[in-house]
Each structure stands twice: as structure tokens, then as C-alpha cells.
């Protein structure tokens, strides 16, 4: 099976005024469609940098990144924006909902530049909010939602364009364990529907739902472990 994500010797070096800091030091791995990869590591190990590179938010200083057939280092700025819109769904630890918009409007934000009728946009947003269990709360502002509900809105927003890849940066980091479990259920649910999930986390409990674990240390892959086989995969693989 063709990998949906291909990283080859990816490095990221930050530097100014003569100082250099290596965030990633030549990482290589592939992710096949439908995998649920948990990326762990200590603070400063390069997890978040890796996620921003995978999300097309930064271009690595070295190596090659191909996602869904697209060579990210060859894409222009607008190409990267289109890539993010069509291929990637981002879920952040702090939700990052726009506080002046209702839950429905937050989900509609990624569709704002598109020439689709408002009714159609609202209908899709309502359907996604329903799929994350927020029926009846479409008109609430983020300030009127709990942390778990806000994260559900953020997940619905990430799924607006039905992206094949979901990237999550500590999505349960701001939630209590029970609410965190509910959010992980949602990720498992969408993973079950064929999405590829990459989740950065400190929480080792998240490993129970993943198919694969990659541990980073000092910008290198310290461990790349298969946790369980994908349902469609032959046992030999």
C-alpha cells in the first residue's frame, strides 16, 4: 500500500545571530492510509515541529515531505494553503475557536472563502456538529461551551473538508480524563471511518487506541513501534 505520508531525512534547524538549534535531525518514516499514529516524547523533542511540517505550516530546512502525493517543499504559499484545506484537519490543544462566532459559525470558518450557499454551509456544519454529539448547541458561543464541547467543535471544524489526514496536538491536554476519553472516542470513530490520524501527546494512555507509536528524542526517532495491525493489512506486514 502506498504511504499517505512519506518523510525522508527531514530536518529542521532554527538559527539566528550565529546560534543554531536543531529541532529535527533527519527523520524518516512512512505512514500508510488508515494508520493511527501517536507521537510521543519529552518537551523539546521536536513533536510539535514535526506536526507543523506535516500540516504544511512550515517547510523543513532539509529532506523531503510527501503527503497525499504532494511534495510540500515544492508547493507555493497558496498551494500549501490549498493542501491544508483539502488534505489536513488540524486539532489544537487550546481549541482555538474564534470567540465571537457560534459553534456552527466556527465550523463554517474554513468554508468562508468558498462560493457555497450559506444554507449549504450551515447544513454541513450542523451535520458535523451532530456527528460529534453537539446537536442543539449549534448557536452557542465558545464561552458558553465546556472544554470538551469546545474541542468537539474544533474537531468538527477540522473535518469540514473531509480531509484524509487528521493532525492533533495534545487534543486532550486541557481536558479532564473522562472528557479526554470522549474526545479520543471521537478520534477512534473517525479513524474507524478510514481517516489517518497523527496525534502528538504526552499521555501514554492514548497509546491504547493507536495502531502505531513513534517516540522522538532530541529531534530523532527513538522508537517506531507497531501497536496493532490495521484491519485490512495482511498479517505479514
Amino acid at each position, binding site marked *: 500500500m502506498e504511504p499517505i505520508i512519506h518523510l525522508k531525512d527531514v530536518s529542521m534547524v532554527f538559527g539566528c545571530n550565529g546560534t543554531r538549534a536543531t529541532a529535527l535531525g533527519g527523520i524518516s518514516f512512512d505512514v500508510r492510509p488508515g494508520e493511527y499514529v501517536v507521537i510521543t516524547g519529552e518537551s523539546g523533542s521536536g513533536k510539535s515541529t514535526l506536526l*507543523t511540517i506535516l500540516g504544511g*505550516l512550515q517547510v523543513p530546512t532539509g529532506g523531503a515531505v510527501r503527503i497525499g502525493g504532494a511534495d510540500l517543499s515544492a508547493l507555493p504559499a497558496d498551494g500549501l*494553503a490549498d493542501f491544508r484545506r483539502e488534505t489536513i484537519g*488540524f486539532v489544537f490543544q487550546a481549541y482555538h475557536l474564534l470567540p465571537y462566532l457560534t459553534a456552527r459559525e466556527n465550523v463554517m470558518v474554513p468554508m468562508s472563502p468558498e462560493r457555497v450557499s450559506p444554507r449549504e*454551509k450551515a447544513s454541513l456544519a450542523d451535520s458535523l456538529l451532530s456527528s460529534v454529539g453537539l446537536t442543539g448547541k449549534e448557536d452557542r458561543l465558545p464561552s458558553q461551551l465546556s472544554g470538551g464541547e469546545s474541542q468537539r467543535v474544533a474537531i468538527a471544524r477540522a473535518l469540514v*473538508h473531509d480531509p484524509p489526514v487528521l493532525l492533533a496536538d495534545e487534543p486532550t491536554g486541557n481536558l479532564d480524563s473522562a472528557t479526554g476519553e470522549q474526545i479520543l472516542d471521537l478520534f477512534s470513530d473517525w479513524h474507524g471511518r478510514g481517516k489517518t490520524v497523527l496525534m502528538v501527546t504526552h499521555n501514554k494512555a492514548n497509546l491504547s487506541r493507536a495502531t502505531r507509536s513513534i517516540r522522538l528524542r532530541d529531534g530523532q526517532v527513538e522508537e517506531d513501534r507497531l501497536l496493532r495491525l490495521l484491519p485490512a493489512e495482511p498479517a505479514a506486514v
Partner: protein
Amino acid sequence: MNIRTLAWKNLLRRKSRAVFTGLGIFLGIATFVAISSITSQMEGAVQDQLDRFGANIVVSPRTEQVSLGFGDIALGGTEVAHSRLTMADKERIASIHHKDRIRSIVPFLMTAADASGKNLVWMGLPAGDVAGARPWWKIQGGTGLKRGEVVLGAEAATLLDKGPGGTVTDGNRLYRVAGVLQPTGEKEDGMVIADIADVQGLAKKPGAVTYFEVAALCKDCPVEDIVAQIGQALPGARVSAIRQVVESRKAAVDQLRRLGFGVSAIVLLIGGLMVLVTVMGGVQERTREIGVLRAVGFRKRSIFSLLFWETGWVSLLSSLLGAGTGIAAAYLASPVFGIEHPAIVLTPAIFGAVAGLTLGLLGAVPPARRAAALSPTEAIRSL
């Protein structure tokens, strides 16, 4: 939900910032519209006053200076008229091409004659035309000039020791004093004013006219055209426009207009800078929000468009509000500037609204470009 509604909702969230952003444009446009409306109406008012205050063209006989001498002895000179004006010339003046622009033609006859034993200048003009030809005259004790009556200039009345109800004789005929002019500071203070027919009889010059005063309505027509046409109708006459008053009043209005434009331009410039600074500050504050939008796939153009629409809404509303306020201010302040019949002048309001919107949008370009150019990495670091 689209970029426009997203921009609008963001504005509603930051109302005080939006108000501050629009304040400069509002003040600039209100100032511009108010001053433009007032100066525009003042121009009309000045012209109306000029028209109302009568003559702006004088028609007199063409004269020539003739030197007199005997041998080497110079005896001075004298003016010799080529022709004389008569009452019949009034019809000729009234028949020019631009006759519809002529409001009044008033003949005057000046002659020196006896007045109750004093040699004074008699000014004759049609009794019924006094109010129209000299609206600024204030006649004490009189209800109007009639045939057989005179109005005495202030100095003449003192000299003759006559007042309203008294009589003045030219040696042959008795005239009732209809009133006394309040001092004007002009030559008529020392004159005896009577109906032109009476003065023609007194001077024994029936139908004679010293000069005509013509009041032409020249708001939209060049007075030179009318002067030329009268000159053609009366080849022996000298026709001259009283330009000094017209030009000086126009110059005053022009100066006021230039001052208004200057003040408006400065206020508008400050308004534009306020937009620039406020929106630029907003971009700094909203790096995180821009990062989220970039993360969910907004292109640079969409970010630019979002900022542009936000400023566009503010500029549009503040421009319209400024234009409305300017119209209202001009209307209310009109009496202070001597405008008797204030009107709503729409042209400066429309121009002002368009200018305000344009300026606001221009002021938004640098910050919007900065926001659009914000690298997703930089924006996302704040997430």
C-alpha cells in the same frame, strides 16, 4: 458565513476599536461635507445678493479728453461726449440677445441746479425704481418717492435745513420732501433725489439720460458677453462691468473654500493614518486568529480580503455617517454664514462618502498586506 460576514462579526466584537478606526474618517468627511456645502451655498447667496444689489454694468456716453490751449499757454482739458444717451436707449439695451438675463435697467440723470437757493446736484431716476436700484438706502420719514417729491441726501438736508414734510424749490416749482437719506458716505449724501422726469424738466433736457445702471443675472453667464452685446446695441456708449465687487466677494468665498479643503484634507489624512495605525495594531493582536485561519486553509488573498472588508465596513459606515452629519451641520450653521434659505447640497456628501471609503480602504492596504504576508509559522507559534 463568508469573508464579509466574518469581517462584520469581528467588527461587532471589537466595537470600541471599530469606532476609533472610523472616527478619523467620520470627522474628516463631516468637516469636508459641511464646509463644501456652506461654501457652495455661500457662492449662490453672494450671487443672489449681487443680483439683488442691482447694477453690475454701467452704460454711459463714450467721452474723449480734449486738450485746450492757445499758443504755448495750456488751458487744461475737457471731456467731450461722442453722443448722448436718451430714454429710448433703454429699449435698445433691453433688446440684446441675453435680454432674459437682464433684471433691471435704471436710467439716471445728473444735473446741477438751484435747490431753495443753494446750488446742488440733482439726481433723477424713475421714482418706482428707487428701492430696486438702491436697496441699501434708508430713507427717514418717507414711504417712497413720487413725482413732485424729492428725497434729500443727509448733507443736503442739513444744508437746506429741511426734513420730511418740508418743501424745496428749484426756483420755478415746489417739491415736497418725501424723506431724508441716512448718511451713506457716498456722493448722494449731498444730492437732491427726484423722479427722472422732474429732473429732465428741471434741466430742460427731455428724455436725457446721464447713464444707465444695468443689473444682469450673471450667476452662470459671463458678464463680458452681456457687456459686449450692449456695446453693439449702443455703439456710442461706454459699457463697463463693475467687476471689483464681484471678484472680491468671489475671492472671499474661494478663500473660504480653500481653507475648508485644507482643513478637510488634513483631518482626512489624520483619519487615514488612524485607520492604518489601528488596523496595523489589530493585526499584531490577531496573530493567533490569523494563524488559525491559515491553519484551516485560508489563502493570503482571503486574509487580505478579510482585513480589507473589516476596514471597508468601518469606512463605509463612518463615511455615510460623516456625510449625513456634515449635511446636518451645514444646514444648521447656514444662517450664521448669511445663507437665508439653507438647502441640502448632495454633491459634496456623495463625493465625501466616496472619498472616505477610498481613503479608509487605502489606509487598510498596508496592514492587510502585512497580515496576508504573515508566515503561517510565525502565526502558528502563538497557538
